[in-house]
């Protein structure tokens, strides 16, 4: 079985900081695939190409409500609906790693692929006149000049909450496959038949089932921390005490 690289996004951890979107724009606009152009970037109606957009949803009804931040980029579908519709073969799915890419030299700008994509993850660049989309940082993950731990998509590297992970979902022993199995990862819009590679890990609540009789609460003493940076003779005390 060939590789199928994908992102696994943990909705339980995502804090909605938009760092993945910002670093994606930053890396890709200066990367091998040319700029992600902005129109009127400092003006009023600013618009431009982004590979990664984050929406925020409210789930439930007050007071039982949760806020879910939802980053969404190309799903690199196994049966990508955008690939067969492209008349020029500009959109293709790589056999070796399952990444869906656009050959900008072949794209005629008919936008048909963006209509076929159920997720709205393709964006037309009016300046270049071609369709653009997430490349899964194909120019990073194979770049041997980068340290090995940095050969992952920029969004995964940037996520401060470690909500994003990257790997081969066809390898049952990979971290992402384990996460999908263990944390009940799911796909988006399974009924469309696109069979997306990217997975989302749902919100989880962990309740420890303990009988209060079995628990002994130990009173802790205050912990006093003295900073090394404090000047001689001066004592900086921070109290992390629990219960005094």
């Amino acid at each position, binding site marked *: 079985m060939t590789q199928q690289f994908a992102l696994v996004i943990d909705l339980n951890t995502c804090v909605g900081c938009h760092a993945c979107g910002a670093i994606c724009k930053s890396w890709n606009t200066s990367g091998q695939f040319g700029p992600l152009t902005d129109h009127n970037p400092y003006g009023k109606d600013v618009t431009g190409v982004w590979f990664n957009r984050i929406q925020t949803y409210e789930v439930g009804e007050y007071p039982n409500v949760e806020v879910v931040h939802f980053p969404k980029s190309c799903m690199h579908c196994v049966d990508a609906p955008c690939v067969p519709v492209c008349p020029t073969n500009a959109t293709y799915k790589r056999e070796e790693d399952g990444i869906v890419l656009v050959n900008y030299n072949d794209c*005629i700008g008919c936008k048909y692929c963006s209509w076929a994509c159920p997720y709205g993850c393709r964006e037309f660049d009016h300046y270049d006149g071609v369709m653009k989309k997430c490349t899964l940082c194909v120019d990073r993950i194979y770049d041997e000049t980068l340290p090995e731990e940095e050969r992952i998509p920029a969004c995964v590297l940037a996520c401060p909450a470690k909500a994003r992970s990257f790997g081969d979902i066809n390898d049952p022993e990979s971290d992402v496959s384990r996460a999908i199995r263990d944390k009940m990862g799911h796909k988006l819009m399974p009924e469309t038949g696109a069979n997306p590679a990217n997975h989302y890990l749902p919100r989880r609540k962990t309740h420890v089932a303990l009988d209060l009789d079995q628990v002994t609460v130990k009173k802790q003493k205050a912990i006093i921390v003295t900073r090394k940076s404090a000047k001689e003779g001066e004592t900086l005390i921070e109290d992390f005490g629990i219960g005094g």
Partner: protein
Amino acid sequence: MRPEYSLILLTVLAGAGQGLFLFLATGDMAGFSKGSRLPPMTTLTGLGVALALTLAGMAASFFPLTHKARGVKAINKWRHSWLSREVILLPVFVGGMVFYGLLYFIGVHPAIIQATGVAGIFVVLALFISTAMIYGHLTIIREWGTAYTPANFTLTGMITGWASGAAVYQMGLAPVGATLFNLRLFFLLAVAGLIVKLLYYHRNSRLYSPTTIQTALGIGHRKIRLMDTGSAYPTYNTEEYHYTALKEKRGILKVASIILLYILPMAGLAWDYMALFSGGEGCLAPVAAISAMGGAFIERWVFFVEGNHAQNLYYGNFPVEARPNPILQSGKKDAPLPPA
């Protein structure tokens, strides 16, 4: 969906050109079978009009392409892409029409002309299907992904073509037999087109989508509300897939398109039919042709703007209130729907 005016022009104008070719080819055969050959100039004029319509449609679709020089590459994926098939069949149709006209002009044996005409009819039908299936196979746009789409595109193209052809025949003084035959076909086509259109609107009025915000996010809760689209200004996702202009007046536009495309041409050509039948001359065919073309433009515009792409769910632009899922709703008539 945002209406792409180049595509509206292509589908209506090239559709009328194809329909006109069908009219001329069948009219020619009807004329032969009745032993009264059409004046060659009538058919040649008609072919010229069909060629002009098709080329105008092709030009309209070609100019908005951002990389026109690469257009020739669009024949690459004919095995998979309906758009690629359309790109191949359009020049075949234009070339075939020119060839058919040349045969007519030279005046070869009628059997050869008829055989070419039959081949042309097959090309035209394949082209109708290819054009329509570009939209018809996109099942994530539920309004488009139906067999009504190719049926509607084919019948609309034939109705506009037939009405234009009737006008050409009237001005070219074609034999009454051939004209009457084609007018009878027109009434059949118009009634079939009207029935398909009404069934299509009926289907879309009670359409529900298996894709909901719940499946789009993978969150099973009934109450999900969009708080932030992640962008302060419109994006490609909110502009390309969502179009709100004339939202209140689309019902009136539908009625107008039905009147202009089906009712008025039928009335006008019925008047002409009666006049021809009683030995007089018709005069309303050009009016019918113009009315049908106008109706087809409105109909195609409504078709494009009524498409709701599944990705609109992520941006709160999907008309949830118009699409109750009957499975969710069964037995709970008053259950509140999730907010749009």
